[in-house]
């Protein structure tokens, strides 16, 4: 009898361990680290998952006396960073400054986590930032976060393989589809490109470029139309390539995709400007094989691109020193020393939302990986083409999950991309309604 008892309690304890761990992870920490200090120094806290943040904070603290920043590295948004931020805000101990990617800005603004900082963003800072970037963090004329980088989608391609198959970077999507056919026909086991089943953000960039407006707030309500005419056009385009087996279709965040890239099975990648640096870090052995070109266009006479990636900084509702927080944010996004500090932690090709910083990035970038190509000049031209019509939705993480779950089923042979868009819309509306937002669903 005692034996049985103790065994059961051991089992209970074993079962309880993961639970308590999970609960512990839920409760936010960091409340203790914030204090206003006894002297005139203002201490603020900063959460980020971005690489090089510690270096930026160190550089700031070295050069500033009045404001000092306590940095805490947190997991990236999808890995629990956003949940951590939400829970901390719910508990009333969010950091002064949080890092939020563009798609999640409206959600955190609606939840009241990101503070309305319109009055804190002065004209000097405003003039420094690319208007399309600031437009993505401005709602009803009010600014909720400050962009760090904005990432036009570009075409990364394997120059060596392009040469072997007699290809040149496609100028239009029709040409691109033609090339997909050629590669499938002539290169056994190779494909021109991957359609990522976990790639809502990629698909959004394609739709954005085609002129889609998934979310539109111009009429005082959230008009949701994930399957509008431009999006349907993009979906039909990729569906044709998928049905013909002319593209790979699997997750991009997977070993399968790593193998495809590592073994030279996929010839192009359609991603943001930042990915040039990420590619160098991930596959140093492919030095000299890659080049970058503008994204193919639907109508070369009226070029446009969408963005893929990019982060912003928000001052949270719990901040007791919003002015100090804003001072650090302004320095971080617009001062050359901030970018230099960030780049000191490793190669990065992020395209700064403050175009004045482009020379700093260009100077630090080792061009030899891209055969001497001046990729920043290309990014600069592409950033100008970013379509200004785009708005992200109030619950983008949820929209993303539903869409990607559906993409994955398309990869498994069930349904179509257009249906995935509709499914994502149907899975988004209940959320918005339960939040009490005014919604409409007109589609073009």
């Amino acid at each position, binding site marked *: 009898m005692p034996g049985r008892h103790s065994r059961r309690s051991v089992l209970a304890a074993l079962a309880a361990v993961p639970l308590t761990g999970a609960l512990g992870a839920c409760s936010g920490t960091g409340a203790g680290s914030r204090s206003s200090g006894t002297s005139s120094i203002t201490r603020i806290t900063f959460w980020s998952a971005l690489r090089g943040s510690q270096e930026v904070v160190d550089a700031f603290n070295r050069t500033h006396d009045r404001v000092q920043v306590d940095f805490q590295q947190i997991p990236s948004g999808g890995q629990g960073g956003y949940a951590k931020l939400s829970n901390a805000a719910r508990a009333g101990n969010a950091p002064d400054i949080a890092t939020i990617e563009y798609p999640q800005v409206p959600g955190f603004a609606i939840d009241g986590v990101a503070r309305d900082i319109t009055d804190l963003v002065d004209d000097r800072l405003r003039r420094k930032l690319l208007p399309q970037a600031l437009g993505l963090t401005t709602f*009803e004329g009010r600014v909720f976060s400050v962009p760090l980088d904005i990432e036009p989608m570009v075409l990364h391609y394997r120059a060596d393989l392009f040469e072997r198959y007699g290809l040149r970077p496609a100028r239009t999507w029709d040409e691109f589809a033609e090339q997909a056919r050629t590669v499938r026909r002539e290169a056994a086991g190779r494909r021109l490109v991957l359609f990522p089943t976990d790639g809502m953000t990629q698909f959004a960039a394609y739709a954005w470029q085609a002129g889609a407006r998934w979310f539109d707030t111009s009429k005082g309500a959230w008009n949701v139309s994930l399957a509008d005419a431009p999006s349907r056009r993009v979906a039909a385009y990729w569906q044709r390539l998928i049905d013909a087996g002319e593209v790979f279709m699997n997750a991009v965040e997977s*070993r399968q995709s790593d193998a495809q890239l590592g073994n030279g099975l996929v010839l192009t990648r359609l991603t943001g400007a930042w990915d040039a640096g990420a590619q160098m870090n991930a596959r140093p052995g492919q030095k000299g094989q890659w080049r970058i070109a503008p994204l193919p266009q639907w109508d070369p006479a009226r070029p446009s691109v969408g963005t893929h990636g990019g982060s912003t900084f928000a001052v949270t509702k719990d901040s007791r020193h919003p002015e100090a927080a804003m001072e650090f944010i302004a320095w971080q996004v617009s001062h050359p020393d901030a970018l230099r500090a960030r780049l000191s932690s490793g190669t990065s090709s992020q395209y700064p939302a403050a175009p004045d910083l482009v020379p700093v990035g260009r100077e630090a970038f080792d061009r030899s990986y891209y055969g001497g190509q001046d990729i920043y000049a290309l990014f600069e031209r592409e950033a100008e083409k970013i379509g200004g019509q785009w708005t992200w939705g109030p619950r983008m993480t949820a929209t993303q999950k539903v869409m990607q779950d559906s993409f994955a089923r398309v990869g498994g042979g069930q349904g179509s991309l257009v249906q995935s868009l509709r499914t994502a819309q149907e899975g988004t509306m209940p959320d918005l309604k339960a939040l009490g937002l005014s919604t409409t669903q007109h589609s073009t």
Partner: protein
Amino acid sequence: MTATTRPAVPALAPPATAPAAHRARRAARRRRLTACGVLMAPFFVLLLTVFLIPVGTAVYLSFYSDDQPGLGFGPERTVFVGLRSYAAVLTDPTFLGGLGTVALYCLIYIPLMVAGALALALLLDSGAARLRAFAQLGLFLPHAVPGIIAALIWLYLYTPGISPVIDLFARADITVDFLGVHTVLPSIVNIALWSNLGYNMVVFYAALQAVPREVIEASVVDGAGPVRTALQVKTPLVRASIVMVAIFTLIWALQLFTEPMLLSQSSPMISSRFSPSMYIYDAAFNRTNYSLAAAASVVLLACTVALSYGVTRFTGRADAAEEAR
């Protein structure tokens, strides 16, 4: 109790001491009540803190919401929203899809579980099985493995590239995808069966031990073979246990969470809103939509209560019909 002692009292105690006896009786009753209270308090405290208060909170949350008018960028205020969250949940195709998934899961899992556990228990009870104690332990052991560990073990066995099982099949030129569009639900059923079959078998086996031996002997004398004895004599006699196991399995199955949550790491076929419980988790922690999560929780609770009640009612009526016959 007092009624039985009352006649004796006047005879034993003189009338003068009657109030004293009365006091003693009252004190005894008070002691009994105190003892009852002390012994039952832990139950009620737990019932209150881990059941009634959370349920009450969920119901409250489901009727209130932090609202902002229009686009939602204004200041928040908590308002009563009536059935809005319920309307949102019940019109959400992903929630209804999750309910459908769990319904299908129950349809596959519960019959398999009840029939499997009963068959094993009958086998053990019939004496056909050798090494009874060993078989019992072997079958029960998986239940001692926490669900999360079990899911991890099966995740390993299901994942292509690392699974020895898939390798073995591949060597025989058979391609299996345990996490494909149509196989993922059976794969989850398999995990649940593995975990719980032994436990329910023990429940049935214990019930079978209580079947009077003379009834079995009578059936043997009447010429019933072992199969007939098992199906037509023993099984009806453990009917109450079958109902109980069915209800517990149903309640457990409706809350399907751990297995799909872990398998979703490895299979894109399991969405983040695969089952109602996963929907609730997703609504609360990924979508920070607490009213929606609360409403979905209440809907799931109502479904569970209704189904459990339905099963008891249905089987109760069947019992009554049987007795009448």
